[in-house]
Each structure stands twice: as structure tokens, then as C-alpha cells.
């Protein structure tokens, strides 16, 4: 198979999954199986591309010219190959989980749900493999619009207002800041292509670079840096598979991925390091990390707590990009994988607890550890990985981030990262502690939903196993980021 054909196949497979799900909408089992099949196909393709990138193969395809110097084109970068691998592999598990969750919770409109779920994955893959900033922007918007029906899935007043907030913040920021920033880059350089080392050096006035960085980081609202984070907790009204795959992996990772791509392939780390234009962002990211950790502690609703934890973890990646040193960028890129794996485990568990026991609040988890041992086991694995305890995969990215901040002589940032880990321990492990130590007198009727239990176990164990294979991913990353 030619390389360009692989890209096309990978991008349209989710669309076909959506189409077939619609065609087979009257047969529930058949309809839901297309998510798994599509996941497997895209996973194989992503894996092949991932290896191809390691062997310096070029994957690109150009369709047509949009306007001067900007084509509708795809080109897989090293960063993109990582993101697509994460999104496609977790899509398989999430599809299995979705079947268990949606049927267990008795949600309505499952066909629409499955269709838009697949379209969202399509958009995420296209973002990962986009060849220039405008193509990235197009699919960034498609991702927003395709996840809107998922956020507002329940169609009650609460989910409608949440959907509105979601849409207005994400689309609003992208149109007010992101798109003008793209125009600005185009006007200055005449191109929007991703190139190693960036395209702005010597073409963009260094004095305005901080301003451009601000437009980008606030324009890419999916990265959820404060104060543009409100949509993420609001989006938690969606069914848990959405929170798990989209709001822990595809959507938010698309946000930080976009920002990372801009830093690495558009602005160029060297240019950033020379001008120090992103140093202010380091402090904002630190603030977001601390503030959202503290808010997470106050949340009793498990999903809301995880949402704020996500905001804080996303800022790790922003932080890494803002530091722009090679170690920090390595950590930031790797954090895309580690956080995805850990956080999807936690969300899977939160959803599984909701389906089996109808518990949403942390304080209601008393004694549940003994009743749902597998789920709590998986949860603990995921939590430990996010906290960054060896031997869990999350420890690597945190390690590199701390090294990166020391490399840039931001000692204070390293301290912040340490404190944040302590806060993580408190708010992520508290549910486990409550679950195993306190006893509840309440009788709780449990519903069996085995399909919601196995996916988190797999991802949780993945956090443990991949610790030993970190180099497998890091090879790809260090190929890109050479200062």
C-alpha cells in the first residue's frame, strides 16, 4: 500500500464506520461493532505509520490548493504519529466500553451517539495528520461541531446549556484568536506548512511573538488553559464514554497537540528560546496547574473532579511547550500518551461505578472498594500513573518536564510540579481510600456491566507495562525535537 493511500484510508475509515452504523441502525449489535472494527483498522494504520516515521518514511498527500501557498494537504509529523496512535488505540477500547455503558445506563439515541463519536475520531485523526495549520483548523472546528451533539446528548435543559457554553467558548475563541493568528502567520510568511524548526524565524517580528503566542494559546480553547477552561467541566454532562475518550483524550489532546505542533513546527523552539516570548506562559500554566488542582479537591462529584484534574494535566503539556527546551518538549509530547492512558482509565472507572452502582459522588463511595474490586484496582493503577509514581508510565513524562524546567533554570516550576503531584495524590487517591476504609450501611443494588470493567483494566495495566517500553515512544519523539 502506498503511503498516501494509508493516510486516506486512515482518515476515512471512521467516516465509513459512522456511515455503516447509520445503515445498520436497526441492528444494535451490528451497529455498535463498527466502532470496534473501525478502531482496529485505524489502529493498524496508525501503528504502521508510527513505525514508518521511525524509519524516516514520508507520509503525505496533497488534494488541492485553497489559496496562495496553502494546500488542502495531509502530512504526518512525528508528533502526529503519536497522537493518532493514542487516539486510534483507545478508540477500540472506548467502543467496547461504550456498548457496555450506553446499554447499561439505558441511554436514548444510541445511533446518533455512535455516529458522532466516529466523526469526532475522524476529525481527531485528521488533526493529527494535517499538513498545515489551516487544515488543522478546519478539522479542529469539525471536532468541535461533531462533539456538540455528544455533549448535549441528554437533551435536557442542563445539557443544552452546557452544550451552548461548550460551543460558544470553543468556536468563539477559535474564531476570535486562532483564525486571525493563522492569518497573521500567513501574511508574514506566505505559508502555513509544518516544517521542522518552524517557519517564523527571520520572518516574524520578534517583539510581537508573545502576542502571537497569546492568541494561539487562548485561541486553541481545547487546551483548556485558564481562563478558557470553563467548557471542560461543563461538558461533563455528557455520557461517560464521551468524557473518557473525547474529554480526556481526543478533544483536549487535539487542543494541546495543536499548540505543541504550533510551537514545534510553526514558531520553532529555537525562535522561542531566543526571544523568550513564551516565558509568561510558563507562569500562567503553573497557575492553571495549581488552581485547578485546588478546585479538584473541593469537588465531590467524581467526574467533575477528574475534569479539573484534566485541566491541570493539560497545563503540564502547555508548560512543556512554553519552556520550549528539548527535554521539556519531550516531556510534553510524551505526556500526551501517558495522560491519555491514565485519564481514560479513571473516566472508564467513574463511568463503570455509575453504571453498576449509580454513584456519582466521591463521598458515596464508602465501602464500594470491596464490592467493585476490579474497578477500584484499575482506578488505582490509573491514578498512580497520573500522580507519576514509578513504575508507571506517567512518571516518565513528569520526569522529563521537571528536567526541562531545571534545564531552563525555572527551579520554581520544578517545585510547583512537585507540589502538584502531592495534590494529585490527595484528590485522586481519596476515592480509593474512602472505598476501602469506610463502611456504608446503605444497601446498594449492583447492575452487571462487564463490558465497562475490562477496558479500564486493560488501560490501567497498560500504564504499568508501558513504563518498561517508554523508549519505544520516546524514539519517535526525540527524532523531532532537536535543538
Amino acid at each position: 500500500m502506498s503511503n498516501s493511500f494509508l493516510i486516506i484510508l486512515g482518515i476515512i475509515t471512521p467516516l465509513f464506520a459512522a456511515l455503516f452504523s447509520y445503515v445498520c441502525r436497526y441492528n444494535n449489535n451490528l451497529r455498535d461493532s463498527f466502532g470496534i472494527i473501525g478502531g482496529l483498522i485505524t489502529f493498524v494504520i496508525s501503528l504502521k505509520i508510527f513505525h514508518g516515521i521511525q524509519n524516516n518514511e514520508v507520509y503525505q498527500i496533497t488534494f488541492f490548493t485553497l489559496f496562495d501557498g496553502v494546500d488542502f494537504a495531509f502530512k504526518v509529523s512525528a508528533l502526529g504519529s503519536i497522537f493518532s496512535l493514542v487516539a486510534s488505540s483507545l478508540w477500540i477500547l472506548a467502543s467496547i466500553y461504550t456498548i457496555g455503558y450506553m446499554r447499561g445506563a439505558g441511554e436514548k439515541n444510541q445511533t446518533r451517539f455512535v455516529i458522532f463519536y466516529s466523526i469526532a475520531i475522524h476529525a481527531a485523526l485528521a488533526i493529527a495528520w494535517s499538513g498545515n495549520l489551516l487544515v488543522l483548523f478546519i478539522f479542529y472546528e469539525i471536532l468541535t461541531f461533531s462533539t456538540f451533539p455528544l455533549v448535549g446528548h441528554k437533551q435536557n435543559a442542563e445539557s443544552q446549556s452546557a452544550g451552548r457554553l461548550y460551543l460558544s467558548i470553543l468556536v468563539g475563541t477559535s474564531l476570535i484568536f486562532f483564525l486571525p493568528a493563522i492569518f497573521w502567520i500567513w501574511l508574514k510568511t506566505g505559508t502555513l506548512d509544518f516544517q521542522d524548526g518552524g517557519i517564523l524565524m527571520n520572518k516574524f517580528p520578534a517583539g510581537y511573538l508573545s502576542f502571537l503566542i497569546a492568541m494561539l494559546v487562548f485561541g486553541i480553547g481545547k487546551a483548556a488553559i485558564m481562563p478558557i477552561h470553563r467548557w471542560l467541566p461543563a461538558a461533563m454532562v455528557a455520557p461517560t464514554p464521551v468524557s473518557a475518550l473525547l474529554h480526556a483524550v481526543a478533544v483536549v489532546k487535539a487542543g494541546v497537540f495543536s499548540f505543541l505542533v504550533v510551537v514545534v513546527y510553526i514558531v520553532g523552539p529555537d525562535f522561542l528560546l531566543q526571544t523568550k516570548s513564551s516565558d509568561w506562559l510558563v507562569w500562567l500554566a503553573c497557575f492553571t496547574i495549581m488552581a485547578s488542582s485546588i478546585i479538584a479537591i473541593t469537588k465531590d462529584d467524581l467526574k467533575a473532579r477528574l475534569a479539573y484534574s484534566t485541566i491541570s494535566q493539560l497545563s503540564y503539556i502547555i508548560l512543556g511547550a512554553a519552556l520550549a527546551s528539548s527535554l521539556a518538549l519531550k516531556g510534553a509530547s510524551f505526556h500526551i500518551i501517558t495522560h491519555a492512558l491514565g485519564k481514560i482509565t479513571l473516566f472508564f472507572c467513574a463511568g463503570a461505578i455509575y453504571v453498576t452502582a449509580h454513584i456519582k459522588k466521591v463521598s458515596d463511595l464508602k465501602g464500594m472498594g470491596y464490592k467493585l474490586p476490579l474497578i477500584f484496582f484499575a482506578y488505582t493503577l490509573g491514578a498512580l500513573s497520573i500522580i507519576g509514581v514509578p513504575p508507571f508510565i506517567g512518571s516518565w513524562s513528569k520526569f522529563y518536564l521537571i528536567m526541562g524546567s531545571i534545564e531552563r533554570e525555572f527551579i520554581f516550576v520544578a517545585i510547583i510540579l512537585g507540589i502538584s503531584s502531592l495534590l494529585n495524590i490527595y484528590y485522586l487517591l481519596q476515592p480509593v481510600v474512602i472505598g476501602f476504609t469506610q463502611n456504608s450501611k446503605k444497601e446498594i443494588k449492583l447492575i452487571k456491566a462487564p463490558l465497562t470493567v475490562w477496558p479500564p483494566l486493560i488501560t490501567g495495566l497498560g500504564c504499568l507495562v508501558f513504563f518498561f517500553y517508554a523508549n519505544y515512544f520516546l524514539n519517535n519523539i526525540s527524532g523531532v525535537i532537536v535543538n
Partner: protein
Amino acid sequence: MFDIFLDDAPALVVVLPLLISAIIAFMPSKIWPWIISIITLLLHLFLSLHLLKEISVSGLIIYEFGNWEPPWGISFKIDGVNIGLQLLFSIFVLVSTFYSRKIFLNEIDYRDSGKAYSLWLLAVGSLNGIILTNDIFNLFVFLEISALASISLIALGAGQNRKALLAAFNYLIIGAIGATFYVIGVGFAYAMTGTLNMNDLVIQLAQYSDGQLAIFAGMSFMLIGLMVKAAIFPVHIWLPPAYSYAPSAVSTLLAALATKTILYFFVRLLYEVFIIYPSYLSLFLDFVLYPLSLLAIFIGTVIAIYQDDIKKLLAFSSIAQIGYITLAFSLKDHSGVASGFVHIFNHALIKGGLFMAVGYFAILYKDRVTLNSLKGFGYKYPITSFALLICGLSLIGLPLTNGFISKLYLFQALYTNQMYFSIALVAVSSALAVVYFWKIVEQMWFSEIKFKSEKEDAYIYLPIWIVTISIIVFGIYSTPIIEFSNLSADYLISGYQN
């Protein structure tokens, strides 16, 4: 045999619809007026294409009526500036006439069909005259004919809602005031120069190098009159009720083309005639048109957000979009004028498509289309709804639609002129456009009411989809629009630089 007619093509594109309109006025049939109109407009398109061919060879056609030479006789002028618009006009009128048949049958008494199409062709002919004329008084005549035809067409909406009468009356009065202003201006100009021909006017005006108050007064009168007609903020108040209470087919025609043709003449007057007073021109552009455009963009968008009636919402959005066009025209350079023309083309398609779709909904719903009444329409009428969605995304300016191309060139023009505040305002207002458009989408697809899909009329949705597909095609392959706009700007701006 055809050659005889083809020589007179510039006159025929205007005269033919006017003549036919007189013939079909009292035709009692409910189908023949439409068939004759379609044949007329096919001929019209053929003539326009012939003009395009001629222009690509010669670059300029001056058509003298009755062979009276220009300063004395009336003349039409076709050149790079208006040929693109002429083509767009011809094609869009044909498409919207296809669309109009079933709509008219639903909204007006079928016995009025002949009168409706008579007025329709009258409006088409006179609006086309505005595009081609090279004579400032002749323009006034066409302005009046088009206004009277439009007003009568709007009043036809009274069968659905009596407020259409009030809207038509409003338009009549305000339009008459605008036309009066314009004709007073023409009077001043004639008194000073003794000519009405635009080319001659430039020559004659040159003798009053500076400081003739009467000239400036005349110019101001003319500009204000045209601003009223083109619905430039704050003299736009006739437009929203007129568009929203007119029969759906009529609002499509008016929204897509009526204000656009007048805007075209407006910019032509500015950059071709008034250019010989650069200080006056830049005074007008910088201190009148520029701030008014910004206000129009912002206020039009904000008011649109608070509208419940969909047609009114679209009308206020038109005010904002006209603001984009005039903002581009106020930039005094090639990129600005070109991006203004780009948006004239693109917005004609977008707003035409939107009004077509909403007009069809009005027929289906059998009442005024409000936000509430759209509940579940996405499921009930998927074909039309999807077209509406695409047109709306284009209105917001998302990539792969022609609305994005407009925004791109507008941003570029503003950037080269270093108008960063305007860039910010345009960005904010396109984000606000999401708010009002998404309210519609939300009602159509994400409200709790669900319907089974119903059959839609192919005679109506095919024209809608032709427009919608052209929106996507011109979003991806924007070269034709860009080239026509650059051509227009080349012709207009070359005068400015000399």
C-alpha cells in the same frame, strides 16, 4: 440573424425583461408567466455570456442608445468592473426564478401570478440597468423602477401577513427620500457641469479643481441617497421589515442582488468620478463610511442575536454583511476594493441560499418562521436543513466555504492597511455570528421534538442546493471570484493612482 440582436446585447439584457414584463402582466394563467420568464432569463444569461466573450476580447463596450453620442445620449458601459457582477446577476436570477414558482403558488393567489412575474421581470431589468448604466440620471430612473417593482412585490406578501403592507410603505417613503436626495445631487452636478454622463462628468468636474461648494453638496446628496438605497447603517431601517415580510421568493431576490447592485454603483461613483477630489473622497471614506461600516458590523450582528423571527435575523445579518463590504470599500487601495467585490459575490450566494431555505420553511410551516417553529426541522426536512447548515457555516466564515475566502481577503486588506482594530472587530463579529446561527441549528436538530422525515419538493430544493454547492465549490476553487474581483479593482483603482 442573431447577429443583429447580439450587437445590441447590452441594451437587450435590460430591455428584454422590461418588455416581457409588460406582456405577461395580465396573463391569467398560473404557469405561462413563469415559463415565459424562464425563457426570457435563459436568453438573458445567453446575452450576458455573449457580453463576457466580447469583453474578454475588447475590454470595454460603450453602448450608445439610438447612436446618440455619450455626452448627449444615454450610454451603457460594460468593462472589467461590472462584467463579473453581470454574470452573477444573470445566473442567480435564473436560479431564483426556478425556485420562485412553487413558492409563489403557495404564498400568493395564483391569479396574481402574471402580475407577480411581471413585477419580477421589471425588478430584474431595472436592477440590471443599475449595473450597466453610465449615466447618473439614467441610474435614478432605474433606481425608481426597481424600487417601485420591489415595493409592489413586497406588498404581495400581504396575503400572508398584513404587515407586509406597512413594510412596503416604509420602503416606499424611505426609498423615495433616498431617491430624492440622489436626484437633488444629480441636479447640482448637472447645474455645475451640464452633463450627466459619468465619463464626461469626470472631465467636466476637473475644471473645478477645488473649493466648489455646490459640487461637494451635490456629491454628498448623491452619496447619502445611495446609502439609503444600499441600506448602509444607520439608514438601513427600511430593509429588515421589507425582507422579512416580502414573499419568500422576493426576499431571496432582494437580499441577494438588490443592495449589491446599488453598492456596486456606489463604489463605482466613488472611485471613478469622485476620485478627482481626493481630499473629499478620503474625508468621506475615512470619517463617514469607515466608522459607519464598523458600527453596521457590530450593531447588525448584535441585533441579529436578539431576533426571534428568522427572516428578520437574516436581514439584520445582511446589515452587518453590507458593513463588511463597505468596510472593504473604504480602504482606498486595490486589496480593499477587490475584497469588497469578493464579498459582494460570496454574500450574494450565501444570503440567497439562506433566504431560499428559510423561505421554503415558511411555506412548509405555513406561518412566520420563528426560532421556536424550527424545532425538529432538521429531522423533518433533512435536505433543505442541511443546505441551510452549509450556508450558515459559510456565513460564519469557516474554511472550505466561500465565506472563508471573503474573510481571508478582507483580513488581508485590513492588515495591509494596518487596521488592527477593525480586524479584531471583524473577528469578534464573526464569532458572534456563531451565536445567532447556532440558535437556529440547535432548534433544528437538538430540540426534544422529533419528526419522521417528510417529502420535500425537488423543484424547490434543487435550486437551493445549486446555490449551496456553488458555495462549497467557490470555497475550494475560489479563482473565478478572485479574478473577477481583481479585475474590478484593477479598473477602479487604476483611476485612483493616476
